[in-house]
């Protein structure tokens, strides 16, 4: 089981806050933004943290993020949420906000002896410890954290399960070791290392990590009747229990002037990657082509595996190619990419055609804030030619499958569905072996349907797509 909490309150609290904020922004009632923390934590309610005031402060900073501001943007603590609401802006240059007010400063990862320890005669914890880190005090085992190397042998050998591993959940799930404690004792994300996979956000039990948002600006542009065009990732198919045409109808209903499927750009990506592969296959020795679709993966290679950089396909991602096409017909429009993950926010920022990004979570919250029922929407007619190949990109294996179909020959494919320390090791071996034609790497388990900001789990998504 993944460390990310499979079902937890944090994502529900985040979406509930988004709905409340968007409702007020749609009514252009920024004044009541200040009321949200009080409404959710009224006097007399049991606090979740040390006291209600702390709970309210945490909510305030979460709402600030939803409004596009980071905790560090606060120069005056008295600045009310209504001010941030009135000064809507996009996510600027931060994508993930680790709110120090919300961070519980979890103790550093180590093994702890619990009260279940009975101080037995066998003492397997002590005799199996390779570092002599265990002594006995007051009839119970005691681990000297200075000598302990976190091997876990004591835990595995205790007959009473008295020794537990206490992780720091955010650091535990980060595949690139981008989170650590800073000099002030707070957790901090090093954005030079971060690949925006979103695992820390999913794993933090205190909901202290929250994404930035472009939605307030998008709402402002829609309210001022600018042309705002949505380009929607193929993974949308499993996000609502409704036919694709009806989901598109719901996206239109929240104010987008037009809508395009990124699956069309994905078809072009597949064709261009196939062309690249055809050229490579002519060479007697080649290292294999690495797919460029997943921005977290591309970022991982960029920041952590410089020797693999030359193997990454030069083909732009489906989002980039879709935006180029859409820009031709809508030169002055604001183009919004709607997708399943945070990494796309980073990629979109580097692209001149994509103005904003919106996650599926944000889209769901906006649809609810509008009072739109997806299942009751008019269908939005799609193109005559359905981009079947492009729609496959939502699931792991889809890119390789599309390239294989276009190439018309058997390919040696190395597929990664979920980038983590173990799959990275397997990748490194495959690169060394030089037997792979095509590497399809999806940072999230299951592919894009397993993205960090989806509305349904990857498995439920697949169930919906297949039904």
């Amino acid at each position, binding site marked *: 089981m993944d460390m990310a909490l499979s*079902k937890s309150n944090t994502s*529900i609290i985040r*979406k*509930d806050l988004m*709905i409340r904020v968007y409702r007020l922004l749609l009514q252009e009632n920024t004044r009541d933004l200040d009321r949200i923390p009080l409404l959710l934590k009224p006097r007399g309610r049991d606090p979740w943290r040390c006291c209600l005031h702390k709970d309210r402060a945490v909510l305030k900073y979460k709402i600030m993020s939803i409004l596009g501001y980071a905790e560090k943007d606060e120069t005056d603590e008295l600045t009310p949420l209504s001010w941030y609401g009135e000064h809507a802006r996009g996510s600027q240059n931060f994508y993930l906000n680790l709110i120090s007010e919300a961070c519980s400063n979890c103790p550093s990862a180590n093994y702890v002896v619990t009260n279940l320890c009975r101080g037995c005669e066998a003492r397997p914890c002590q005799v199996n410890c390779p570092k002599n880190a265990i002594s006995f005090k007051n009839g119970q085992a005691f681990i000297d954290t200075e000598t302990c190397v976190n091997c876990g042998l004591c835990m595995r050998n205790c007959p009473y399960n008295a020794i537990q591993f206490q992780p720091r959940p955010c650091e535990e799930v980060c595949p690139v070791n981008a989170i650590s404690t800073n000099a002030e004792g707070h957790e901090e994300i090093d954005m030079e290392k971060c690949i925006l996979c979103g695992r820390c956000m999913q794993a933090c039990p205190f909901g202290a990590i929250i994404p930035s948002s472009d939605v307030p600006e998008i709402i402002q542009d829609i309210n001022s009747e600018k042309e705002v065009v949505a380009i929607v990732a193929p993974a949308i198919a499993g996000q*609502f*229990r409704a036919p694709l045409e009806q989901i598109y109808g*719901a996206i239109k209903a929240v104010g987008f002037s037009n809508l395009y499927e990124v699956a069309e750009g994905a078809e072009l990506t597949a064709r261009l990657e196939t062309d690249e592969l055809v050229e490579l296959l002519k060479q007697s020795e080649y290292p294999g082509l690495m797919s460029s679709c997943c921005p977290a993966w591309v970022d991982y290679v960029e920041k952590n595996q410089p020797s693999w950089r030359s193997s990454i396909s030069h083909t732009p991602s489906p989002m980039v190619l879709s935006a180029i096409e859409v820009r031709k017909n809508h030169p002055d429009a604001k183009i919004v990419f709607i997708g399943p993950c945070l990494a796309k926010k980073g990629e979109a920022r580097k692209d001149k055609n994509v103005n904003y990004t919106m996650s599926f979570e944000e889209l*769901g*919250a906006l*649809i*609810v804030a509008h009072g*739109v*029922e*997806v*299942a*009751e929407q008019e269908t939005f007619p799609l193109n005559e030619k359905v981009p079947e190949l492009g729609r496959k990109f939502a699931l792991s294996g889809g890119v390789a499958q599309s390239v294989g179909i276009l190439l018309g020959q058997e390919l040696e494919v190395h597929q990664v569905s979920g980038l983590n320390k173990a799959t990275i090791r397997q990748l490194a071996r495959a690169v060394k072996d030089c037997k792979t034609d095509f590497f399809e790497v999806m940072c999230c388990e299951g592919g894009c349907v397993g993205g960090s900001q989806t*509305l*349904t*789990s990857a498995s*439920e998504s697949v*169930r919906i797509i297949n039904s």
Partner: protein
Amino acid sequence: MKKHKVVVCTGTLCHVLGGSELPSLGQRLPEEWRGLVDIKGSPCMGYCKDSEMHPPFVEIDGEVMQEASVSKVLEYLEKRIGHGTK
């Protein structure tokens, strides 16, 4: 014997706020309960309009369950079915 009636809210708010797996409840139902439980989906039942109530919502035999989940509904049914047959 009268069937237990389960109505799952399929409104968008319930879907977004934690209820996305509830409509698959029927597929998670143990084989031997299939004849004893009647599961239906319903458009928004309006419980979300009450700010004191917590989505997602499921009605079981006319009673509303808040913060419903597949496992909570199955547990509730197990108690009901257990009492009804034993």
